């Protein structure tokens, strides 16, 4: 892999982590000493994606703003990697008028039509709309593709299987991505899933299935390259599962008492691992690491400042925009 690509992947991962750390800080800042999920500048559930950066960075490196992404209840990493407007996304998370949804959506419901990005808080239900986006691309003769993202728990939902069949049947330009972070909230995949690799399920639909086992961004990048190319060429969908890592809780405030793997988690963090690899191979030095971190921090803090400056919506406006 060429150096420029590796640096891009690294930068994207750092940007995502920096963002999630900043949201974590802002989210908890005014929920002390007693945690109240509905309180503070960022109220509500908050699902952060730390540890899953390699999936978004590796996949979205192959996309342009003409391609679609449907993400999940844990959407920030894909939103950032796909180029969603960070200012307006952050304003939405803060529930402000300049947010992508003018404060009506929240962090699980981010829509940026400029880059064909959406997400849904309902497990597996982001897959079907991606089929339709792919249909539109196909019918209009473009080579755009739709990337549909879920977690491993979604692979046991009906919509998942209906979608794979339909996409395969109609050779739709879709890349189905499963982020296997091993946990469906508190239920480990061993207690939810009858196969060791969801990529095996692709065979049931006659499409290629690949599993990236090591949560490496370069591994994801390679696998996604094939899947995206296949979709662009009109050869139909693929399924890509990545064995990734939920570094933090299902949502903020999750005590994770059920989680027996926490001791080993820090050592599996993909970001320092990748950074070390790049350092060892002479791609990164201390100055470059600092520069990437500073750039990311500046962008993220700028977005947070933008969000905080944006006014809160007028409660009277809650009744508007139900219909076009």
């Amino acid at each position, binding site marked *: 892999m060429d150096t420029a690509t590796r640096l891009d992947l690294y930068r994207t991962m750092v940007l995502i982590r920096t963002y999630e750390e900043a949201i974590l800080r802002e989210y908890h800042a005014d929920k002390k000493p007693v945690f109240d999920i509905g309180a503070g500048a960022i109220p509500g559930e908050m699902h952060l994606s730390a540890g899953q950066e390699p999936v978004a960075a590796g996949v979205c490196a192959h996309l342009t703003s003409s391609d679609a992404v449907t993400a999940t209840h844990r959407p920030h990493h894909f939103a950032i990697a796909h180029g969603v407007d960070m200012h307006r996304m952050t304003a939405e998370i803060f529930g402000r008028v300049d947010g992508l*949804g003018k404060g009506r959506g929240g962090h699980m419901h981010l*829509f940026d039509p400029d880059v064909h990005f959406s997400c*849904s808080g309902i497990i597996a239900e982001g897959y079907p*709309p991606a089929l339709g986006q792919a249909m539109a691309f196909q019918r209009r003769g473009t080579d755009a593709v*739709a990337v549909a993202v879920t977690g491993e728990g979604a692979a046991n939902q009906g919509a998942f299987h209906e*979608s794979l069949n*339909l996409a395969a049947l109609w050779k739709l330009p879709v890349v189905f991505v499963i982020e296997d972070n091993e946990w469906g909230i508190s239920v480990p995949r061993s207690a939810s899933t009858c196969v060791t690799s969801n990529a095996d399920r692709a065979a049931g639909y006659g499409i290629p299935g690949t599993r990236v086992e090591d949560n490496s961004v370069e591994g994801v990048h390679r696998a996604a390259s094939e899947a995206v190319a296949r979709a662009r060429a009109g050869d139909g969908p693929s399924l890509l599962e990545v064995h990734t890592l939920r570094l933090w809780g299902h949502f903020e405030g999750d005590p994770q008492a059920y989680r027996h793997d926490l001791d080993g988690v820090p050592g599996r963090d993909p970001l320092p691992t990748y950074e070390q690899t790049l350092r060892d191979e002479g791609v990164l030095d201390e100055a470059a690491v600092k520069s990437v971190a500073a750039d990311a921090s500046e962008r993220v803090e700028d977005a947070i400042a933008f969000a905080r400056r944006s006014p809160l919506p007028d409660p009277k406006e809650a009744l508007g925009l139900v219909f076009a």
Partner: protein
Amino acid sequence: MSLTDAADASHTSAPATTRKLSTSKAMVEAVAAEMDRDQDVFVMGEDVGAYGGIFSSTTGLVDRFGPQRVVDTPISESAFIGAAIGAAVEGMRPIAELMFVDFFGVCMDQIYNHMAKIHYESGGNVRVPMVLTTAVGGGYSDGAQHSQCLWGTFAHLPGMKVVAPSNPADAKGLMTSAIRDDNPVVYMFHKGIMGLPWMAKNPRSVGPVPEEDYEVPIGKAAIARPGTDVTIATLSLSVHHALDVADELAGDDIDCEVVDLRSLVPLDTDTILESVGRTGRLLVVDEDYRSFGVSGEIIARVAERDPGMLAAPPVRVAVPDVPIPYARGLEDAVLPTSERIRNAVFGVMGR
């Protein structure tokens, strides 16, 4: 033809045509005209192609437009209704057919959590211009899972318009409006008004339909029959039963006004209030379940405005809160039949 003329023509004056079509043919005519006009319009659903829709909602379309634009789908309602949503988000104008509304249980997440909410959640930045067509209603012994109306369920959930035509002219005009609307529209057609040769039908399921392009505005009720003594607010097939009863009772010196709601979302509250204001009596006839539904909603809207306009307590004829039974006699006992409507009119008139 102006919008209002088209809407009124089918109810208050002779339509400017003598050409008669069944409701199903009128629906198909609207779909075909819009497909001709706009390449982004396409149809998908189960058996919409060669079969032409189990209830003739797409007859002949595949021959005219081909399988790329009239697409038979697998029995995967979540997948293909969701696909319609995604295509609509990208600016296409899909018409997706849920064969029986009773099947909504397997795909409601796409409908109410996605189709209906995306515009709002996106702060108005993403539109979902699609039509979800679906067959409703009973009266032919199809049992509890194939006979429901359920429009109250859809109308209850914000973000989707809901229409239910009662006659061919409205079926065409409402379909045209639904396809052109920038919002998701649930278009609920009663099997009993389609004019199907294999099902008993009211004579009004074949009626005059203007050949030209016209819209029936969504959110506008029609006075199907003007009257002075009692307002019968209803929709879809029950409009016909109400009109039959109104004709009969004219001989008993009771002058019924029949309001065909046509749309549930938006609901034309003004027309209902104006009618009740004149008659002072209200009967709501609804083929959906009685509790927590359309009949209660309409009565509430009148009561909220001015309960004093009612000279007698309002009455409703709806499906009592039981699943729709199979045996003919049992089913007729729960449907809003002419007999039940007639008795209710006598009741609200104090006779």
